[in-house]
Each structure stands twice: as C-alpha cells, then as structure tokens.
C-alpha cells in the first residue's frame, strides 16, 4: 500500500456517537442515549441532562466507581445558558479511572436529583452546593446551610453576589451593654 492509497476516513452523514475508549466508561455511556462524551484536557467527561444524573451515577457506581471524589457547581452567569453546571467527579480505584459528570442546570429550575442515596459521601457536598449556589437537591435528607450561618440570605458563590465584604451581623450574639 503506497501513500497515495491512504484515504482519509470520510465522515458519515449521521456520525455515530463517539464513545469513550475505556471499556468501563463505554459500558456506562452505552446505557444512556443522552450522554455526550468529551475529552477535557485529556480527562473523560460526560455531559448529560440533569434529570439523568441519578441514573448515570448509579450506573457508574455499578461499573466500579466506588468513590465520589467531588461534587461542585460552576456558575457561568452570562457566559452560557443554562447558567449553572453541576459537576461530579467520580473515582474508580479498581480501574484507576476518573470520570467527570457535568449537568447543565438553568437558573429558573434549580432542582437536581440528590445522589446521597448512591454515595452517602455526597451529603456535605450537596449541602455546600445548596449553601453557596442555591441548587436544590431533591431527596437530600438534610438540605441545610453548611458553611454560612443558617440565617444568611443569598448564595455567595453566585456571580451576581457581590464580591466585597459585608457588614458584621450579630444575629446570634446576646445583647451587650
């Protein structure tokens, strides 16, 4: 075969969904039609609708992702719509793999399914996401503020929450003459 005969692979009319190279990840992705797989800086990322989060997380756990490493939220504010993005980092020790799930969440519908039932370790992380971003996790056993005082108003890590310092609040301290 000479060089001339090498033909570039033609893109088909409807390209098949690109699936991850890793067998473990592919097995998870194949179960759901709505998962989009991308490589972000060389890391495997699934982009999925927020309603699927619980199912995908369960499937990932069944596939061998034992540990929920991280759960957080990104606020793209005006840069992207939907505005928020729920980010879940999963870790598989047996396969030495990481998987990141990203689920866009619109600002007018901040309900997302809680994954505490699958990973109890998501408890603090979801409370933090609720506290700082105002995402509401359906099915969380104790969705209260975790870092800010209970009576705090607003969700400080949202981009439209002011950066500057706020006056000291003495709501809990008793009166001092």
């Amino acid at each position, binding site marked *: 075969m000479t060089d001339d005969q090498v033909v570039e692979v033609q893109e088909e009319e409807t390209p098949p969904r690109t699936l991850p190279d890793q067998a473990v990840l592919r097995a998870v992705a194949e179960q759901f039609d709505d998962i989009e797989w991308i490589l972000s800086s*060389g890391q495997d990322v699934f982009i999925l609708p927020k309603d699927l989060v619980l199912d995908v997380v369960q499937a990932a756990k069944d596939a061998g992702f034992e540990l929920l490493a991280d759960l957080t939220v990104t606020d793209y504010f005006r840069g992207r719509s939907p505005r928020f993005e729920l980010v879940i980092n999963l870790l598989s020790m047996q396969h030495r793999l990481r998987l990141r799930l990203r689920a866009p969440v619109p600002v007018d519908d901040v309900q997302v399914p809680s994954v505490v039932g699958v990973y109890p370790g998501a408890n603090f992380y979801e409370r*933090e996401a609720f506290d700082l971003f105002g995402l509401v996790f359906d099915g969380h056993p104790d969705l209260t503020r975790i870092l800010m005082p209970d009576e705090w108003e607003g969700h400080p890590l949202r981009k439209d929450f002011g950066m500057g310092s706020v006056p000291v609040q003495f709501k809990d301290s008793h009166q001092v003459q």
Partner: protein
Amino acid sequence: MTDQKRRDKRNVDVWLTGTEEPGWLVDSTDEGAQKMAAHETAGRLLDQEGLVVGDDRVLDEDVAPEDELMIINMGPQHPSTHGVLRLNIELEGEIIRRSKPIIGYLHTGMEKTGEELTWLQGPTNVTRMDYLAPFHNELAYSLAVEKLLGIDLPPRALAIRILMTELNRVSSHLVALATNGMDIGALSMMLYGFRDRERILAFFEKTTGLRMNHNYIRPGGVAADLPPDWQDDIEFILDKVPPRILEYEDLLKANPIWMGRTLDVGVITLEECLAYSVTGPTLRAAGSGWDLRKAFPYSGIENYHFEVPVGERGDVYDRYRVRVEEIWQSLSIVKQAAESMPEGDYKTDDRKVAPPPRARIDESMEALIHHFKIYTEGFQVPEGEVYVAIESPRGELGAYLVSDGGSRPLRMHMRTPSFANLQGLPVMMADSLIADTVATIASLDPVLGDVDR
C-alpha cells in the same frame, strides 16, 4: 457540705418562699431521674453503675427513650476540636449514639476570592486552606493550571516540588502526632512533635521566606531556587529527625496507655470509607493501599521508590501507625530527591507564563513590560476545565479549575480532604464512649481551614 445538709437547706429555702412542698424529686437533678429506668436490663444496669466495664454496646433490643438521650454541644471553641469544629453529640449515658459535625466557622470565601485573583496570584490564596500542608495546596492548584496551559516543567522544578511537599508531609504528620498525643494526654508528644517540626520549618523559611503559607510553588515552576547550601540543611534534617521518630516510637508504639486509648477506638471500615468519600491515611488504615502518588503520579513522583503503608483495623492506632510509616517513606523520598536533584532551571522558560529573568529586565525594555504584564494583568489560560488531584497528608486534594480564556479563573474549587473526611466522623464515633471523642477527632487530623475554605 454533705448531701443531706444541702438538701435540707434547699428544703428550707423552698418552704420559706411559701411552696407547699419541695418542687423536685429527692432523687432527681436537672438532668433527670437518677434512678435507673425500669426497662434497663440487669446487665446494662451493672454496666451503667460502673460495676462492669464494656466498650462495645450495640443495644438494639432496648433502645433508650427520647428523654434519656442528652445532646451536648462540643465546640466551636474547644481545645481538642483542632480549630473551630463543632459537634452535636447525642449521648445515652456515656455512649455516643449519634453525632453531627457542624462546620463553617472558618469559612473564608476562598473560592470567591480565587475568582478575583490572577492565575499567578492563586497559590497565595489556596496555600491558606490547609495551613499544615501549604505546599500541597499550591501544588494541586499549580498542576491544574499547568494542565490547562499544557506546559512542561524542567526536571529541577519537579524535583524541588517533590522535595518540598514530602518534607511538608513529614511536618504535617508530626503535628498530627503532636496533637493526637496532646488530646489523649501524652503531653510530651505535643512538645516533641512541634520541636521537630521547627527543624523542617527552618528550612522552609530559608527557602521560601515564610514558615507557613509560602506561595512558593506557582504555575510554571517554583518561586525561587533552593538556597545555596540546601544540601547541608536537608542533611541536617535527615540527620536529626529520624532518631527522634525512633524515640517517639519507643514512647508510643507499645505504650500500654496509648494502646488502651487507641486500639479498636474510632473504627471505620473500608466500605464505610469509600461510601463517605474518606481518603488519605484514614482510608489506608482501613486496609486500602490507595495512594494517589502511586495511582496517578504527579510531578515525577513515579521516579522515587517508596511504599504505601497500610493498616488493618481502621482504628485510631492504625491511623497513628500509618502516619508514622508515612513519615519514614517521605523522609526516604526526601533523601532520594536530595541525592538526585537535577541541575537546571527551576521554572519553565515558557515566556507566556514565566516572566523573563531579572538580569534581562535591566537590559531590555520589552522584558520589563513583559514582567509587569505578567504580574499585573497576568497570563491567559486557554478555555477549558480540569480536575487534578494529589495526595495531601490528609487525602485526596483536588483542584477543579474552569477557565473562560481570561487571566482569572471562572471557577476555582478545591476538593479538600478534611471536608470529606469529616463525614466519616459520625460513623467512627457511633456507639463509642464520649471519652474517645477527642482521640477519634485527632486521629482524623482535620484541618478546619481545609474543611471550610
């Protein structure tokens, strides 16, 4: 005053105020009836009266009614909570039934501040999270930025990073030993641990200018080269610290009091660790050989030979053992790094990230402009998002960075190990004695700056 007299006095007071009869039961205090409730089994009664001492009491046939449970509050200003951790503990007698960590008393808003700082200023911010392991914070952040930038570092920068982080692991574990000892009552350990930490901190101060919160590891390399006679300092540390560790082994390893306070206390199983996202020495003490330095090597740590110590029981004693063994392994890495320290540049020569050398600034105006541009506006990082994790002394320390192509992060999130590890605390403390609380907390080695950020 005897009890009888005191009772009489209270009787008199009450009669004087006109009450018909004393408003309390003779055998009661503010905390409730002092007689054991009728539903108590005979064995349990002996137990509560102190005639029988047992430590494993899972009683499912007779669960105490609500009014026999007492909720006590511990912290946030408490000497043994390692900062400002607050615990709500539900007690049945002396036994902890449930507990709930309440955090946020050190919430600093670093993730918000991180969005306002340039990529180069970021380490200043994150180094103050886990203040016992500042180098690890800087390293996680810098590795994430470098991954977004896609730059490679000269070998000397990598080796310096490993040298500093592993020394930092030693100093952090020494404080963990010190505070663990102090909480259990081995006060000498507290003084010893801090004494040896000083030797390492002296080297840090010499290299970075600060004892803590160094801002030394930055995107693109490290801030400065090692000091001229750094080999002597490392040799001094490697000379002085190991005999001391041996001394502490003599002091604690087979000490019956220490073992009595730590063996089979605060047990957490491997499955529970995984479920609650607990990592680090706690996970390894529960029997897992998981170490990110082996699993996902970073900064060239795969070039050094070391082992991952693993425990079996997942109790306080095993966590203490794992930490001590990790000190030995880290000292060995430090030795290897010092012996094989490559020559060369200590930061990348990628001029997009690193400013020109100081000498060039005197010669060329462009270099001067370049210098100011990097330190004021900062360099741009390509659009993208990345998660990079390293093994900090407390577990998986990850940095999740999102860039929109600007000179500041769109989102800077740190996955801090203590935050997740704290979720394992109620598991460890369930059905244990209240006296073991401080031992358990100390063995988890939480750093509240790491928890609350």
